């Protein structure tokens, strides 16, 4: 049949014309009758792309499982060689990595919780309260986004060093106890709280804390949850700052510990690689579990803003 295809069949790599992939809508335009050839074409393309995207991770797993010397002798093939199944266990229980994971965990939790608290408070003030210099202060808060740790590194290392906080949890966490991004995002969420609700709470005699805890935060929960996830990610994944304030070999957070890999003994290379995969795990799990909340939280913020 050479007649022209229906509109949905025409949708190639350009011009999405079908319903949102996220939530199937009532109008599933003709999906039930996509011709098999077109269908396989799409699936093929998508699968190829998926393989390309996953390839680096696949190779990493291959390297983690393979005995290093045997692997390089076999000229680095695409499949595992002389598999050591216990490599992940060995990596996880190795002194270095387990300590590093613990340090990272503590650091991440402290930073995440702290950023949550400071951001909610600051966002509350900007969203619901009137006070002098409000606009200026907001500007100053937002301006800090232009001063990332990459720029302020040298003086901050100096400060931490002077405080005697090198190789300490304080040194790792204190500079990051607050972030303007959190203030911004959560403020957006708070701004979406209907004014009527605020008036009603006022008439009911709610104080700030009560209103914040019982009304504002629950209503802004999607954004707050999304921010928490982002905060967690950023803290766990940090590299530059932890490396800068960690000077002892036995005091390394997980990401920094990975930098030992290039100079590690070839014979234990696979353990190091396995360690890297383990380090990536917490974030992966958090993202998978909170996928929906994350998307909802961020898009809700965008729509209301």
């Amino acid at each position, binding site marked *: 049949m050479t007649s*022209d295809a229906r509109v949905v069949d*025409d949708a190639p790599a350009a011009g999405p014309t079908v319903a949102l992939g996220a939530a199937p809508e009532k109008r599933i335009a003709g999906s039930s*009758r996509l011709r098999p050839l077109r269908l396989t074409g799409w699936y093929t393309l998508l699968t190829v792309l998926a393989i390309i995207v996953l390839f680096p991770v696949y190779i990493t797993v291959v390297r983690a499982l393979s005995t290093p010397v045997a692997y390089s002798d076999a000229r680095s093939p695409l499949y595992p060689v002389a598999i050591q199944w216990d490599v992940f266990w060995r990596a996880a229980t190795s002194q270095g990595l387990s300590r590093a994971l613990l340090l990272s965990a503590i650091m991440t939790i402290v930073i995440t919780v702290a950023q949550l608290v400071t951001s909610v408070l600051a966002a509350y003030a900007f969203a619901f309260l009137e006070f002098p210099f409000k606009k200026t202060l907001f500007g100053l808060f937002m301006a800090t986004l232009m001063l990332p740790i990459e720029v302020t590194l040298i003086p901050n290392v100096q400060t931490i060093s002077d405080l005697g906080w090198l190789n300490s949890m304080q040194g790792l966490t204190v500079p990051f106890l607050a972030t303007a991004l959190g203030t911004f995002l959560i403020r957006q969420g708070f701004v979406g709280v209907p004014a009527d609700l605020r008036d009603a709470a006022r008439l009911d005699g709610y104080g700030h804390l009560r209103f914040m805890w019982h009304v504002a935060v629950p209503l802004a929960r999607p954004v707050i949850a999304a921010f928490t996830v982002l905060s967690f990610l950023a803290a766990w994944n940090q590299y530059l700052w932890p490396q800068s304030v960690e000077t002892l070999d036995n005091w390394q957070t997980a990401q920094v510990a990975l930098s030992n890999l290039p100079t590690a003994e070839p014979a234990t290379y696979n353990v190091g690689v396995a360690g890297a995969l383990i380090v990536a795990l917490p974030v992966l799990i958090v993202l998978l579990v909170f996928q929906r909340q994350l998307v909802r939280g961020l898009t809700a913020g965008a729509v209301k803003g």
Partner: protein
Amino acid sequence: MAGVTFDAVTKRYGDVTAVADLDLTIADGEFLVLLGPSGCGKTTALRMIAGLEDITDGRLSIGDRVVNDVDPRKRDVAMVFQSYALYPHQNVAKNIASPLTVREYRVDGENEPRKLTKAERDERIDEAARMLGLEPYLKRKPGALSGGQRQRVALARAIVARPQVFLMDEPLSNLDAKLRTQTRAELVDLHRRVGTTIVYVTHDQVEAMTMATRIAVLDNGRLQQVGTAEEVYDTPANLFVAGFIGTPPMNTFTARVSEDGRRVIIGRGGNAALGGAPLADAAPSPDAALTAGRLVLDDAKAALVRPGNDVIVGVRPEHLHLAAGDDEHSGDAISGRVHNVEWLGHEAVIAVDVAGSTIAVRQRADRELPDVGADVSLAPAPGGVHLFDPATSERLG
């Protein structure tokens, strides 16, 4: 210009059937309204004409051409979407022009369709802009227009394509009441001037009644009735159509034909639409405990039923009047108690409690209004009684 024919057209999404076995012939030049509640399949049917949904079974033709597999771009239709679907990043002039830039058109006197020249495009755009009063807004973007203006831009965009069929998907639903009334008249006027077939989807029966040459009523994917406004109003084909068309809706009662076959006894808890139960005993006694009253059947209606049959009786609010005590058929009336009186200036709508449910009676405002709580007798106007088969919900006669 062409008509549209649905020949046993069905649309299924997996297990769900949106349109079931639709047979409908839309004549060339008609203003046909697809009317029904949400989810009845009317929008799906419209989108099938456009080619935005494909057809599971059956044949759809535009004019003489079977278009089941024809690309929407080549069907020579134009659509006005419910949300108007204007390109927000382009100004009004560009929006109106957009069907003309790529598609090919059959120009008068030529055999083959071709792309239009700039002059031809401009001419059509000017014509449409003039027709809809959009000249002052041509340079504006949709974001800077009011709802009514946006709607007219959407209309203009459809007009310039000079299609064989106009498709409109609830175009008035986003307008406020006053604008809606005004635009209704404008659309009818447009149809008269341009003469193209219009297929129009709405859930608002007032729009249907005032604009359509014919109305096709759908429910649950099935065509219930197609006919002129008079036809669907005066002779509804089933209970659904009877209840859907007309405001306030037709009053319906469960009833049983009397022993002499010339009356129907109205049961308690009567309103059939609310699931009233049939009578246990059909004795034609004015026993208030069992019945709500009786209505006389004219000869034509009486011929359709047999004594003892269960029927559903429908009477429109304007076909009931408060019977005075000395009315000739005073024995054959429905008794009830006035629940509420709404005086609307030109008429009054009286809510009457009859046998457990509330029905509506319309009467002219210059007639005396009853008091709330008064006991009244209601009698039908001649020919105002409709009968329906309780098993099939279909009209008898």
